[in-house]
């Protein structure tokens, strides 16, 4: 399989190494360049769903739960809100935009919100 020389050069891989890894790596799906280009996003997503179905339920958990510290939300060991509305309001006001907890209808954020 030939691949654009400039692409290989950008990643510092020669054609021989690329061909070897493509043939031997268990992580490389055997698409030709033309096949890969023909795959539509829905087809790729369907393949991900099929792949996941074929994995064990244990691996769904191992791979699916990936905690990363969320500034604001995870800074205290405990928080409680009497109502969901209180919680949503706090999220809108206190959490950085990039966490995605802000309600879309309140977009863009207020000037006081943490960034």
């Amino acid at each position, binding site marked *: 399989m030939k691949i654009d020389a400039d692409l290989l050069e950008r990643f510092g891989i020669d054609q021989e190494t690329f061909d070897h890894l493509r043939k031997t790596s268990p992580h490389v799906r055997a698409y030709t360049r033309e096949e890969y280009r023909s795959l539509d996003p829905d087809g790729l*997503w369907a393949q991900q769903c*099929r792949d996941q179905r074929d994995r064990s339920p244990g691996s769904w958990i191992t791979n699916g739960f990936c905690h990363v510290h969320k500034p604001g939300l995870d800074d205290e060991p*405990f928080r409680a809100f009497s109502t*969901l509305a209180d919680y949503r309001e706090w999220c809108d006001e206190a959490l950085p935009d990039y966490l995605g907890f802000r309600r*879309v209808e309140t977009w863009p954020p207020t000037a006081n919100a943490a960034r």
Partner: protein
Amino acid sequence: MPHGNFTLADAHHLAAALHAEKVEYLIVGQGAAILMGFPGTTQDVDLFLPISRDNAEALIRALRRLEFPLEPVHLVPILMASEMVILRGGPFALDLFHALDGVEDFEAAKARGVLTPSQLWVLSLDDVIATKAAAGRAKDHAALPLLESFRRHLRGEIGF
């Protein structure tokens, strides 16, 4: 905070503790979909709970089995069914809900709930999607198309 990822061992321990203490619960959010085979990721475990003093006491016993450090200040909101409680001091990040946007009440949601291969009860995928749509956060809007597509896969509407 000392918590880390929700691991396979945590899932076993959680299922065992909730079962042993006869806690009524549903795992909700994207974690519910993941436990049904959704190929995505999430960060925390979210539990939906009925408003019930007996169930709250059972939950507290289960959380203590799991070594969540619960002080009196933590217990009162759980016993009084605060609608949202965030616990970050235990073995994994856990959120407790006594209300959810998009579902009418716990009993109705439980009747549609699903027991997953990990022996944890989860909200039905229809209800997961309904709650995400009702919550209306940016991250929910991002997840909805994939969750809806996953539902079509599960239903066999597209190749799966």
